[in-house]
C-alpha cells in the first residue's frame, strides 16, 4: 500500500500538471460541498446560478492556488479548500456591495457572522463533517465502480437503506449467509478505498486520523464491523440530508 504522503503529494502533482482526471475527481468529490457552503454563506442573497458560478470560480481559483500550495505549512486540506472558496465568495460580495451600497464585507467576517453560540455543531464543525462525509461518499463511489452490481446492491440495501438481512435475501432470492458474505466483500473493499481517499485528501496527520475518530478504522475486529456499518450509515444519512437541502434549493428554482 502506498504511503499516505505519497498519495497526497502525488495527487497535488497531478493537479499541478493540470491532469483533467484529477481535476474532475476533485470537482466530483468536493464540488457539492463547495456549492453547499457557498449557499450557506449566501443565506438567500444569492441564487442557484450564482452558486454554480461561484463554485466554478472557486475551481478556477484552486487552479491558480495549487501551484503555490506548500503542504509543509501544515494547513488541513479542508481549510485550504475553504479558504479559497471564502475569498471567492468574499470577492463576489464585495463586488455586489460595491455596486449597490458602496461598502462590502470582508471575507474574514463571513465566519464571524454565523459563529454565534448554538447547541448545534458550529459552522466550522459542520463544514469539516461535510468534507469528511464527501470523502466517505467518494470511497463508496469507488467501491461501487469496482464491485459486482448485485454485491454492491446488497451493501446498499443492507447498510445505506437499512434493510434487514432477511429482507435483502428475499428481494434477491439468496440466503442470509450469502447476503453476509457479499456484504463482507464490499465492506473490505470499502475500507481499503477509505484509507486511500482519506490519505489522498489529507494534508495533516490529524486529518489522516479522521477515519479512526469516526469509527472507520482500517484494522477491524468482528465487533468493529458493526460499528463500521453503523458509522457509514450515519454519515450517509447526514450526507443525504445535506444533499436533500441542496436539491430543495435548486429544484425550487428549476
Amino acid at each position, binding site marked *: 500500500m502506498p504511503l499516505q504522503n505519497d498519495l497526497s503529494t502525488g495527487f497535488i502533482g497531478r493537479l499541478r500538471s*493540470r491532469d*483533467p*482526471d484529477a481535476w*474532475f475527481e476533485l470537482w*466530483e468529490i468536493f464540488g*457539492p460541498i463547495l456549492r453547499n457552503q457557498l449557499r450557506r454563506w449566501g443565506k438567500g442573497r444569492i441564487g442557484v446560478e450564482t452558486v454554480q458560478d461561484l463554485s466554478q470560480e472557486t475551481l478556477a481559483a484552486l487552479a491558480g492556488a495549487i501551484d503555490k500550495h506548500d503542504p509543509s505549512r501544515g494547513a488541513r486540506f479542508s481549510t485550504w479548500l475553504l479558504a479559497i472558496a471564502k475569498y471567492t465568495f468574499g470577492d463576489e460580495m464585495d463586488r455586489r456591495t460595491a455596486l*449597490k*451600497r458602496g461598502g462590502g464585507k470582508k471575507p474574514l467576517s463571513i465566519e464571524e457572522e454565523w459563529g454565534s453560540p448554538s447547541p448545534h455543531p458550529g459552522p466550522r464543525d459542520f463544514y469539516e463533517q461535510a468534507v469528511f462525509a464527501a470523502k466517505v*461518499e467518494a470511497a*463508496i*463511489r469507488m467501491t*461501487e*465502480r469496482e464491485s*459486482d*452490481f*448485485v454485491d454492491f*446492491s446488497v451493501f*446498499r440495501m443492507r447498510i*445505506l*437503506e437499512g434493510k434487514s438481512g432477511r429482507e435483502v435475501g*428475499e*428481494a*434477491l*432470492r*439468496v440466503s442470509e449467509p*450469502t447476503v453476509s458474505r*457479499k456484504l463482507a466483500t464490499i465492506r473490505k473493499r470499502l475500507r481499503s478505498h477509505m484509507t486511500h481517499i482519506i490519505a489522498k485528501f489529507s494534508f495533516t496527520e490529524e486529518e489522516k486520523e479522521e477515519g479512526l475518530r469516526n469509527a472507520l478504522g482500517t484494522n477491524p475486529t468482528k465487533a468493529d464491523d458493526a460499528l463500521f456499518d453503523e458509522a457509514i450509515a450515519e454519515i450517509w444519512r447526514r*450526507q*443525504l440530508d445535506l*444533499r*436533500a437541502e*441542496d*436539491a*430543495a434549493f*435548486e*429544484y425550487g428554482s*428549476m
Partner: protein
Amino acid sequence: MIISNFASLLVGLLCLVVVIAAPIAVVFVIYKVVRGLCWLIWGAVTGIAAGVGYGFKGIGMGTSHIYSFFKNTVVDALRLVGAALTSIFMIPPILGNVILGRWSAANHYGRAFEGEIKEAWVRLYRLIIGNPIRLIGLKALTEGVEQRLPEVMAHAPGAERPRGGNDRFAGYKITGALPRGGSGARLYLAEPTKEKYDHFAKNGMVCPGEVVIKAFSMEDGSTLPQIVRESRALTAAKELGLVLDHTLEGENFWYVMPYVDGKDLGEVTREMHTVSGNDGLDNKSMRQLLQTSAQLLATLDRFHTAGLWHKDIKPGNVIVSTGNQAHLVDFGLVTPLQSAMTLTTHGTEYFRDPEMVRLAMQGVKVHEVDGVKFDLYSMGALLFSMIENSFPAHGNLSQIRKRCPEALRWIVRRSMADTKSRYASSREMLADVATVLESADPYEVVPADLPSFGEGGQLASAIDPEIYRSSTPSHSSIPAFAAPVQEEQPKSKSRRRPLQRGVLAAVAVLIGIFTAGAVLTATSYESHSAMSPLVAQAHQRDHADAVISRAIRTLETPEAERVRQHLDAHAEAVRALSPQAFDYQIASAKSDAFDCYRHDDHIHHSSGCTGHDVPEMDLLKMPTAKRTDPYDVLIVNDLPPSMSETYLAKVSEALSGADMHPRGLANDDDREIEWLAAARKAAGVGFPNDPDSLEQLEQFVLENEVLDAVFWIMEGDDEGLLISRFVTEDGPVGLSNSAVDLSQSPRN
C-alpha cells in the same frame, strides 16, 4: 410510689424532647419558607431578565426591520431616480439614430431604454407597495407579485407574429406561439396549407392538423453553433418522423415538427405527487409512472435502433398528451451514435451521467463511447425524479426515500449504475419495467423476478445490444428480441415463466405500437441553391461529418494519409487549447478535408460520396505528398502571457504526438526567431481573416527550406475567443475559431 416516680420521669423526658425538638422544627419551617421565597425571587429575577432579554431582542429586531425598510426605501428611491435619468439620457441617441437611419444602433439603445423603464417600474412598485407591506409583516402578500409573476412572464410565449410576417414560413399559417426553449429558437404553432398537405400526401407522409415550427434566425439572436447543432441530426429525425419539413434560407433556419398538446412530465409529476401526498405516489399514479416509463423506453429504442443518441432526456423534454401518452421531444442534442465528432458535455445536470462529462473532458470521440448507456442513465434519473418529485442529487447513489416497489428501485439503480453494470439496451430495461407494470401488484415484484436478473443472485448475461441496434424498427424485430431472452434463461423458475411470457408480449405490443406510429419517410433536402454561403457552409458540415468520418477511415492513399496527418495535428493542437470548442473545430477541419477529397475524382468515388450532397464551394487543393519525415511546424504564439504559460507546452506536445516537430518555441535559436519575424511580416496586418494574408503565409512556407507548416494561435477580439490557423505549403487546413464564427473563415 414507684409508679409516681416513673410518671415524673416520663413527663420530664417529654418536656426535654419538646424543649429540644421545638427549636429544630421552627428552624426547619423557617428554612423552608426562606427557600421558597428565594425560589420565588430567583424565578422573578430570571423571568424579568429573560423578559428584558426578549424585549431587547424584539426591540433589536424591530429596529433592524425598520432600518431595512428605510434603507430599502432610500435605495429604491435612488435607483428609481437613476433609472429615470438614464432613460432620459438614452432618448437623444435613439432619436439621433432613427433620424440617421442607423436602425441597429437605434434598436440597441431602444432595448436599453426598455430595460431602464422596467427597472424604474420595479423600483416604483417597491417604494409604494412592496416596502410598506413588508414593513407591516405581510411579506407573504407580495411573494406572488414579486416571484411567481416574473417567472410566469419570463416563460410566456413570444410574439405570435414572426419577424418578416406570417408569410415567412411558406406553406404554413401561424396560429400561435409557444414559450422559447433554451436553444435560442422561437417556437410557433401553425397549420399547414392545403398545398402543403397535398405535398406531404404525394410523398406518402401523414401530416397532423397542427404543427410546431422551430425557427432560428441570426437576427433574433440565434448563433451558428446552435443552428449547426440542430441541423446535425435532421435527416435522422426526419426518418423517425420527428421532423416533417425544414428550410434553410438566408440566415434563417426552421423546421417543422408534429404538435403534441399536453403537459411536460415535470408538471405531471408534481400533480401526481400533490394528489398522492407526501409519502409517495399512490397505486394509480405508480401505474401511470410505469406506463410512461414503458412508452418512453419504447420510443428510446426507436432512437437507438436508428443509430441515434437523444442525449437530453429530462422531464422538460417529455410531453404527456391526453390519454397519458408520453412523447419524447426536442432533438436539439441528438447525435449519431457512430459520429466521429468529439464528445461534448451538452445535456442537463443531474440527468446527465457524470461519466460522460469525464470522458468529454478527455476529448474522446462519440463513437468511442456507448451513447445508449448514457441515455439509459438519463432514463433512470427521469424515473427517479418521477418517484421522488426531485432530482437525483447523488447521481447513481441517490436514494429513493418515498414509497416505491422494490423492483422499481432496482431498475432505477441498474439504469444509473456504473456503465459496465448498466442495462445494455433500452429493450432490456423495458422488459424489466414491463414486468412490474404487468404484475397484479407491483409491490409484490422483487428484483429477482425481473428478466434481467439471473439465477443465484447474479445478473443475467448481458444481451448483445448490437443485435437490436442493427435491426430495423419494425414488427419483425420483436421476435428477434423475445427469442434470446427466453433462450437466455432456460432454467428460470417455472412460476416465473407465465409472467415473463406476459411481459415479453407486453414489450412486443409496446414496441409495435410505437414502431407503427413512426413515419419512416426520407425526404430530400430543399435545393441548396437558395442558401446563403454562411448557412450553406453550416449545412455542408452536417453532411461532411458523416461522410468524412467514413472516408478518412476507409481511404488508404498517400494523399489521404497526408491530409489526415494535417488534420490530426491541427485538431489535437486546438484541443489542447480549448477542449470545449473542439467539437466545432473538428467539424470545421473535417469539412475542409471533405473539400480536399471531393477535389480528387478518384478519392471522391472511393468514398462513396455523391455530388449533390454538398453544394459547390471554393475548394482547396489537396496537399501533395513530397516527403515522409516528420513535419517541421513553426508555432507563432500570439496568446497573452497568462495563456501561453498554460497552453504552449500542451500545443507542442500535441503536435509532437501527431508526428510534427514544433519550431519557434526556443527563445535562443536565432534561426527560429528569424522565421517568426518573417512569418509575421508575410502574414501582415490582415491575418487571420484576410485570404491574401493566408496566401502570403502559404508562400512563406513554400519558400522556406525547413518548415512545412505554420500553426498560429491568438486570442480573438471577443472574450474567450481563440483563433488558430494551420497553414501548409499547400494552403490552410482546418480553420478554427473557438467561438465558431464561421463568417470569419478566410474562404468566405
